[in-house]
């Protein structure tokens, strides 16, 4: 047992780190550090840099552009990317629909979509949630009825992140209304330009417009856009949701945010000393650092188990990644808000949206995104199955309760 990286892994980490240092455009890095809005252009730019290097879809099967890296290396890659800090390649394509198409799509779908996903030629979004189906995803009501060579889709999706940019959406739709709720669901790929689709933005309390409602009104989808078998979509969705093991704890991101926290706490002053010298505040930071270190070790245990091929039985360690990861991220966002004290109050969306505004910021130039991020990050314990749902799953699957 040696929890340190071996020489090969260390060399790999250095390689990845130096690539990120060299290749991540400075304006993107700066926006990431400052917590400002990362736009479509930023993600496209960065993912194409990665794709040129052959790293955009590192975890895919090698025949479709994957790297064949070990789980440890995949982990190092993600961790370093988050610490750079660089944006993730577009999640919905690279980590969600891509692997589903690889695992369950037909050859035509693979050829048509995979290279475009890797190079982010198509912007994908996810059509799972519906207004009536929050934690109870399988109760979804959007229907797809066969009519000749196409389906006719009707219904509504919600919480669709960045649908405003999307070329394609992958959807769970009900193809058999008569069977048990998990059994009549299919997985469809839908071109967002198809007539009958309307996207309505939802503004969240931090002021951002990341998520949307997507309405389907007699939308015609060719049968060839069905992934895998009809009525088997629930299995594919579970596969998709189960793929999140490595990235979900976002340890690298939290490390980077703690460094930022320490940086700002060294600038901000309380009376005649920097805030970082305040024992109470310093202790709060140390407390979250301990939690994060523990989570990192836990994450590494999961990665190591995957390396040894023990990935099929539920691992008690893996189950805690999402819950602890979300708690830690939220705590850090709260401390970042606390750093600026009352200067968290001014609401300056223009300072977050575009950092080349003419007007100077109110208060410290790093303040604007901090409170909004705190509010925005409340989502982390809600989306992808709330922490309450996660605990239900652990109680059942791991503890047998």
């Amino acid at each position: 047992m040696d929890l340190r990286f071996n020489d090969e892994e260390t060399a790999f980490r250095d390689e990845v780190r130096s690539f990120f240092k060299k290749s991540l455009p400075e304006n993107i890095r700066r926006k990431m550090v400052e917590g400002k809005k990362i736009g479509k252009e930023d993600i496209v730019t960065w993912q194409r840099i990665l794709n040129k290097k052959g790293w955009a879809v590192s975890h895919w099967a090698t025949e479709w552009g994957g790297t064949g890296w070990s789980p440890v290396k995949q982990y190092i890659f993600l961790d370093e990317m988050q610490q750079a800090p660089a944006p993730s390649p577009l999640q919905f394509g690279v980590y969600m629909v891509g692997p589903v198409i690889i695992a369950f799509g037909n050859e035509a779908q693979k050829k048509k979509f995979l290279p475009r996903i890797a190079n982010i030629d198509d912007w994908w979004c996810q059509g799972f949630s519906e207004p009536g189906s929050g934690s109870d995803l399988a109760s979804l009501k959007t229907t797809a009825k066969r009519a000749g060579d196409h389906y006719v889709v009707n219904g509504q999706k919600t919480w669709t992140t960045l649908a405003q940019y999307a070329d394609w959406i992958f959807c769970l739709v009900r193809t058999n209304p008569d069977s048990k709720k998990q059994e009549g669901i299919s997985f469809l790929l839908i071109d967002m330009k198809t007539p009958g689709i309307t996207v309505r933005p939802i503004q969240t309390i931090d002021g951002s417009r990341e998520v949307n409602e997507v309405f389907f009104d007699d939308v015609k989808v060719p049968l060839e856009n069905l992934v895998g078998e009809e009525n088997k979509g629930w299995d594919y969705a579970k596969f998709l949701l189960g793929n999140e093991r490595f990235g979900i704890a976002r340890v690298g991101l939290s490390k980077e945010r703690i460094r930022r926290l320490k940086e700002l706490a060294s600038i901000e002053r309380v009376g005649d000393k920097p805030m970082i010298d305040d024992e109470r505040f310093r202790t709060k930071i140390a407390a979250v650092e301990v939690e994060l270190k523990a989570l990192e070790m836990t994450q590494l245990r999961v990665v190591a188990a995957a390396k040894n091929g023990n990935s099929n039985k539920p691992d008690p360690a893996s189950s805690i990644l999402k819950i602890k990861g979300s708690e830690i991220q939220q705590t850090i966002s709260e401390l970042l808000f606390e750093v600026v004290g009352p200067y968290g109050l001014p609401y300056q969306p223009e300072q977050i949206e575009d950092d080349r505004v003419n007007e100077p910021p109110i208060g410290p130039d790093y303040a604007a995104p901090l409170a909004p991020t705190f509010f925005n990050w409340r989502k982390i314990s809600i989306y992808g199955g709330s922490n309450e749902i996660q605990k239900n799953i652990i109680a059942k699957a791991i503890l047998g309760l």
Partner: protein
Amino acid sequence: MDFELSEEQRLLQESVGRLLSDRYGFEQRTAYMKEPGGFSRALWKQYADLGILALPFAEEDGGIGGGPVDIMIVMEAMGRALVLEPYLATVVLAGGVLRHAGSKVLRAGLIPKIADGSLVLALAHSERQSRYDLADVATSAKKDGAGYVLDGAKGIVLHGDSADKLIVSARVSGKQRERDGIGLFLVDAKAKGVSIRGYQTIDGLRAAEVTLAGVKIGAEDVIGDPGKASPVIERVVDEAMAALSAEAVGAMTVMHEVTTDYLKTRKQFGVPIGNFQVLQHAAVDMLMATEQARSMAMLAAMMAAEPNAVERHKSVAAAKVQIGRSGRFVGKTATQLHGGIGMTMEYKVGHYFKRAMAIDVSFGDADHHLATLAKMGGLLAA
């Protein structure tokens, strides 16, 4: 010992409550936010008609002679409605300075206008660097004949962009964080050398950064004894924290009610989510946090008028600790229990959460006041 409201107080509670429930629906509030100054001038006038703008002022000054409990009643109702108007800024903060330190002439000139709704005031005290230290004043007031000249900058001046006049603190002597040497001055918002940059705050209210460059103050606009303002500022801020505590309780109460209702109506897995025991207990935890906060807001109201400044501040600081912690907890839990919907601008619970957070960071957050309290030896004599 008596927790009952008097007949007048019950009437006050009813009339304010009725006005706000009629006039502060979610869409109405959104519309008020877009008016100049970010609040409703029409409602401001109605507050005047109701007498609440005159509430804490002495009858001889044109007020009603109400006390902190009356303010508590008004502020709790305003917290329930998530009110945008500059009540705290005008009546509690600037009004408090006038009550405690304003000369008879100043009181006679200003209080009737506050009372009839024709004058909006703001207290420009905190500065970029001062954080929660009330003695940290770098803005200078230099003697200039019978008056003063002010130079410096004030930050996060609540409703500073709609105030007709500002009450500005500035240092006449001493070092930047010294308690002695601070004075208070009445400054016209349009005076030469005053520049005001208004902005919305995260909770939908307004504040401003104020710059003072060679602003001349006549002798008549010096409030109280220049150099001796700290006790006044501390007292007014304690009163403001007591008022904010009541407002926060109003906000928490609504968050708790809305969440409990949501648990009863939202269905998942074929049943109302309120059937799930974990969510039930979370709602109970919200209730407990809200009730503990309510108890402390009452204590703060009672102690806001306490003559012993140390006892007054300890109690108010303790209330602010409870309010801050309860408010964060209730806000976070309300959001979590709602899921995605609680995070949208279109739904009200998130707005209450933001206000609760803003209240916590106003005049010192929970940890700040806890440290103060610990330094003062806590609440119980050893």
